């Protein structure tokens, strides 16, 4: 295997299952995420990726299985508790706080979560991160005036300000035009180089290739492949899952 074997994983998903009525959205899925690692969670639409993100962040509770954050089981804990312990996320459809300013939107993640700041420390950190994601100079604007990519940047700043142990990016690159996409990928690359621990759910395969060393592939709620990104993307079963059976 690899040199991570001896260290404890940052996040360990063990036999996690979640169903809605008769539909099993996540079926007995297991995988590990190691510290300083960026992995991709990919699969066709409806394969259970977002459900998995919701299970990790506590928006949903698993019916079965364990989710261990540095050894501690967080499965089924309230979402706020999981945020306290150091899991931060962005949302598939960007969620702004419309009556708050840009600065306040960024600060919202840094007061109650994993990092607990207030006053000058909070303002300084928020300004620093806004600059980091490319939003300097518009701190006091209402968020409704922001473009889509700027809203996505802001949401990233809101997640980063909590100094998360694990960052979940749910289709953070979706809906960006090609030049925005390059900027976006570069931004996440920087985070990866800093040693952040990240799970990326994404349909943009170029991004997965350039950002993730490893990938987990889901289809119909089941994990169908896991491994190095290049080899996983070449796996016939993964291709079949993406293209549909009749094309295989």
């Amino acid at each position, binding site marked *: 295997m690899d040199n991570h074997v001896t260290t404890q994983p940052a996040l360990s998903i063990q036999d996690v299952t979640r169903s809605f009525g008769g539909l099993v959205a996540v079926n007995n899925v297991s995988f590990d995420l190691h510290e300083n690692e960026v992995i991709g969670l990919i699969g066709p639409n409806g394969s259970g990726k977002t459900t998995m993100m919701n299970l990790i*962040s506590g*928006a949903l509770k698993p019916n079965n299985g364990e989710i261990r954050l540095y050894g501690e089981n967080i499965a089924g804990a309230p979402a*706020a508790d999981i945020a306290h312990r150091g899991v931060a996320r962005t*949302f598939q459809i960007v969620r702004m706080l419309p009556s708050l300013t840009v600065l306040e939107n960024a600060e*919202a*993640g840094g007061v*109650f979560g994993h990092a607990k700041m207030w006053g000058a420390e909070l303002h300084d950190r928020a300004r620093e991160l806004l600059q980091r994601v490319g939003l300097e100079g518009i701190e006091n604007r209402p968020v409704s005036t922001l473009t889509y990519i700027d809203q996505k940047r802001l949401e990233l700043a809101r997640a980063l300000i909590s100094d998360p142990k694990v960052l979940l990016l749910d289709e953070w690159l979706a809906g960006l035009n090609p030049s925005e996409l390059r900027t976006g990928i570069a931004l996440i690359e920087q985070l990866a180089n800093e040693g952040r621990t990240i799970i990326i759910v994404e349909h943009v395969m170029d991004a997965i290739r350039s950002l993730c060393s490893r990938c987990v592939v889901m289809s119909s709620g089941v994990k169908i492949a896991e491994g190095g990104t290049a080899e996983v993307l070449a796996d016939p079963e993964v291709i079949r899952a993406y293209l549909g059976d009749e094309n295989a």
Partner: protein
Amino acid sequence: MNSEVRTFGIAVILFLAAATLPLISSGYLLSIGVSIAVYTVLATSWTLFSGPTNYISLAVAAFFGIGMYVVAGGIDLLPFPVLVLIGAVVGALFSAIVGLATLRISGVYFVIFTLGLAELIRQVVSWGQATMGTSSGLYVLTDFTDPQIYWALLVLAAVVFLIGWWIGRSRLGFALRIIGNDEVVAVHSGINTARAKVILFVISCTFASITGALVAPRYSYVEPTIAFNPFISFQVVIMALLGGVHRLWGPLLGVIPFTILWELISANFPTQTTLLLGAAFLLIVYFIPHGIVGLIESGIQKWKGDQHG
């Protein structure tokens, strides 16, 4: 910081000016003054919770009545200040129970639950009095004068404003603004949303109970239908909305005109009050959804725009 000092200075001057009212007038004007003071406390404290969270509470009358009933029931046994304190504690405990039961669930259920709460307590109190064989009315005979009650309410209003100002600057206030914007973001930012909402709800309701306790001596005769009159809740909601719930001083701008207007309406059209209250609700929802504060602020913005343009 400078503008904050200035605002504070203006507030102190207005407060002192308001405090001179009993020296000028003792009759009709003072009684309107007392009403305005009562509704200022009720509407401002209501807004502390319902403003940022959008949880419309229709339970003010329930907590107001609790405070009033504690005083009415105990006036022969304990000194008045102790009773006010007990009223506050009972209101706080009861609102904590209601909040814990209803605030973890959607806003609609909360509204419905609070809608009948005053009526529920009225039924239970009436039943309790009937079962224990006591008469339904209680006499509250004290030697408190209207000016004393008025001053006490003014001090209470000042406390509400100070607490509101403090909350607005605190982590709790920030948490509530986030919750009001998007509860999903709030929980994923690590906010214990249920706890934040319950704390604010309890603060808000406790002030309603204290208000009820303070004005009890004015009524001299208290019975369940007086103390738990649901119209108090409805008027508080409408005054707060009329003024505007996104600023601490917003409700005050609704309370003053509405109290005076309502005084005229109930004097001239005593049988039409319900109809007119309904019409007022519709007028506000359809034509001034952001309240008088909203009108003022958009006016200022337009004026500024004209200046630049």
